């Protein structure tokens, strides 16, 4: 599966990239919201994983951009340090498909991502 990851923290990005590659996915790395949105067309990812607090465009803006571009396809998973109720609610209202908070469990992420893969096959 082709996964676009938007995350500004380098170490965090390294960990995500490593885990997702090991799971057999193709990973497209972007370091901020704007880069993520601009690479959507070029790479046509099957899944987007995004942080919320990032330079240029926030993760919530990424969600709405993805949902605007692909109203039915391309699920978005949010992986953020912000766990407040209002943020989570806003994310789902904008169309996010899943929400994980940091600190996150890499094993859990792996399973959640696989779930989106299964539905794609179906």
């Amino acid at each position, binding site marked *: 599966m082709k996964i676009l990851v938007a995350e500004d923290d380098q170490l965090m990005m390294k960990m995500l990239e490593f885990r997702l590659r090991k799971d057999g996915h193709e990973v497209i790395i972007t370091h901020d919201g704007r880069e993520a949105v601009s690479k959507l067309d070029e790479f046509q990812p099957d899944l987007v994983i995004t942080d919320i607090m990032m330079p240029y465009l926030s993760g919530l803006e990424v969600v709405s951009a993805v949902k605007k571009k692909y109203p039915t396809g391309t699920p978005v998973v949010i992986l953020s*340090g912000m766990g*407040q109720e209002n*943020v989570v609610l806003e994310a789902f209202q904008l169309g996010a498909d899943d929400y994980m908070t940091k600190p996150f469990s890499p094993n859990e992420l792996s399973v959640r991502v696989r779930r989106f893969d299964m539905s794609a096959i179906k």
Partner: protein
Amino acid sequence: MSWQTFILHLFTYGILLYSIVILICYLLIGAFSIMETRSYLHKNSFTDYRMLASSTETPSMSILAPAYNEGPTIIENVRSLLSLHYHNLEVIIINDGSKDDSLERLIEAYSLYKADYFVNQRLKTKPVKGVYRSSNPVYRKLVVVDKENGGKADALNVGVNIARSDYFVCIDVDCVLEQDALLKLAKPFLEATTQRVIAAGGVVRIANSCEIEGGRLVKVNLPKQFLPRIQTLEYIRAFLLSRMAWTKLNGLLLISGAFGAFDREIVINCGGYNSKTVGEDMELVVRMRRYMEELGEPYKVAFIPDPLCWTEAPSTYRILGRQRNRWTRGTIETLRAHKKMFFNPSYGILGMLSYPYWFFFEFLAPIIEFFGTLGLIYYCFKYAVNWEAILIMIGVICLGILYSIFAIMMEVLTYHQYKQKRDILHLVLVAILEPFVFHPFVVWSAVVGNFDLLRKNNSWGEMTRAGFAPNKKI
């Protein structure tokens, strides 16, 4: 002893004394700055700004951005202000009677409507023509105020009246802010326990030649033109050394008008910005400090050395000259309005140290330098070359260069914005050239400022700027 030798000696010793005092000041500023910077950087490493960004418990903040004929860039600039990280934020754009279509552009871009808004006139201002809010909930943070033209101070006072927050941040609308600028500026207010923090100043850095996209700084470059480059050095010196040292002493007098945060309650209590001076930013801080001293409450003016605000510096001698002329007049007007504090022990550090320092080094220094140099040249031609005085002057110049190089070193050791080795070399080169090329011009502008003030020529000196057009690389 003839009167000529007497004048010669008076002259020589005057300059010698002056240079010794400068040497001592440089050394003290350097030492205090190192202490303050070290402690700031250590403290900063324990600060999780993300935690603050997501908290709902933070005090409310308003951004006040006065705009006058900013039409071509205002949409982008407002967008970048709206995207700053801060939870309890309100962005107030004050259209100070612009003659262009700024307001129409804003109304269209942000779907604004004229709201029935009760303006609490706690500070006297020019009339407000209308308050606009957005019908789009995404822009609920935005308030646009349309008012009759009254200058920057008046526009800011309107903003202070409209704001509903505990603190406000005043900025120039064409500044480019880092995303976490407000979080960093809010921190000193939150950390205060025994002293009330009445204001927090930020650093202004020079954006000429930097890459700016959509109201955001993408890449930092050292300015390519000579004048902005030399001002880069000047700003580093002022912010990283001088202001840091004054913060250590809690004697900071000036918060840049382009970027600073204030306690709204205190600003209102001491009457807001003074629209009669051209140096309203400095005057306000001095008045706030004076107010607190007279109240007898412990207080502090904080300063954040991180590069958070980027602005375009004048790139021609004409505009630069006007800017410096205005600064000089502002300084003198402020000093004059508060002369009561001059060496007045009841004002503590403010009266005994800050005020006299400004009086001697900011106000008198250019005058002394100007007439000193003129006198020396005259003497050399008329009588004999005064080698002693010339040697002392060379010493002072070397000292100045040394001080600049020290500033560059502090920049490299702390924020290191200019990554290429070449950039640092360029800065050092500029430091060596400055006393011969740039400095005389600045001194001249200051002297002209003095004369202008004497002639009561209180013109504003409108600053024409190139403006950051969207996606334009400068």
